[in-house]
């Protein structure tokens, strides 16, 4: 008696046929391996709009992304300054107070300590260049190459009067806290910076 029953792998991605026996597997070999090791996830909430904190966040994000993890960064409040296209993001539909906020917090990021009206930030940039540390711009470019997902918080965008056109094109999603939570629920690492 021969059993000639062939079935297809039960995963939705491949069409591989399986040699079925009574105890036969439901997935083909490559798929069952993937089943055991799904990609780990990492989520970061980037709340602050300071250069040093952003560098820390992007350093971790790029490292995680190159270590086989899915990374998404949720930009909210001052973190949105990092994503601004131009230094002063003042648009017509903004209210006076929104304009004032965007006047005073720009995409020219300060550092979180010893800023001295920009002098500290300038010195920090010089120092980092001298010691060949990657700059924020480099890290952001890398993050994009490594498919790090940027999510901009629509609520803070609304409060600060920012729209899709004011932010860089790398932003992959405009969403709220629920989207973030849904991602964070499945992620192993979760940071608030």
């Amino acid at each position, binding site marked *: 008696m021969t059993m000639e029953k062939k079935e297809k792998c039960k995963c939705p991605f491949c069409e591989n046929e399986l040699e079925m026996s009574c105890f036969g597997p439901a997935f083909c070999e490559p798929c069952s391996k993937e089943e055991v090791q799904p990609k780990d996830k990492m989520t970061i909430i980037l709340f602050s709009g300071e250069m040093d904190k952003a560098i820390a966040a992007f350093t971790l994000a790029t490292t995680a992304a*190159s*270590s086989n*993890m899915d990374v998404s960064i949720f930009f909210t409040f001052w973190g949105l300054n990092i994503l601004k296209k131009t230094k002063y993001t003042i648009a017509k539909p903004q209210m006076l107070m929104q304009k004032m906020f965007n006047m005073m917090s720009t995409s020219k990021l300060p550092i979180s300590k010893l800023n001295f009206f920009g002098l500290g930030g300038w010195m920090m940039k010089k120092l980092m260049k001298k010691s*060949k540390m*990657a700059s924020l711009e480099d890290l952001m470019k890398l993050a994009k190459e490594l498919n790090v997902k940027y999510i901009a918080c629509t609520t803070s965008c609304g409060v600060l009067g920012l729209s899709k056109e004011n932010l860089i094109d790398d932003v992959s999603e405009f969403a709220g806290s629920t989207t973030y939570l849904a991602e964070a629920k499945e992620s192993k690492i979760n940071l608030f910076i």
Partner: protein
Amino acid sequence: MGLFCPMPIIKTKQEMETMKPGEVIEVTADDPGFEKDLPAWCKMSGEKFIEIKKEGNLLKGYVMKKGER
């Protein structure tokens, strides 16, 4: 060379994407953190860590690309 965390690891990863399974990469770095970072990265990414050699200030790491040959 001359780069700081996380660049050595990211460059390694980018280079390894162009390699075939079974091939071994030699990475030279002078970031002292690299000694611990490379094995940790291999653990996460599943690549096979071979060894790290110290030559003065230089660190030479060897990693084999995973997968069947």
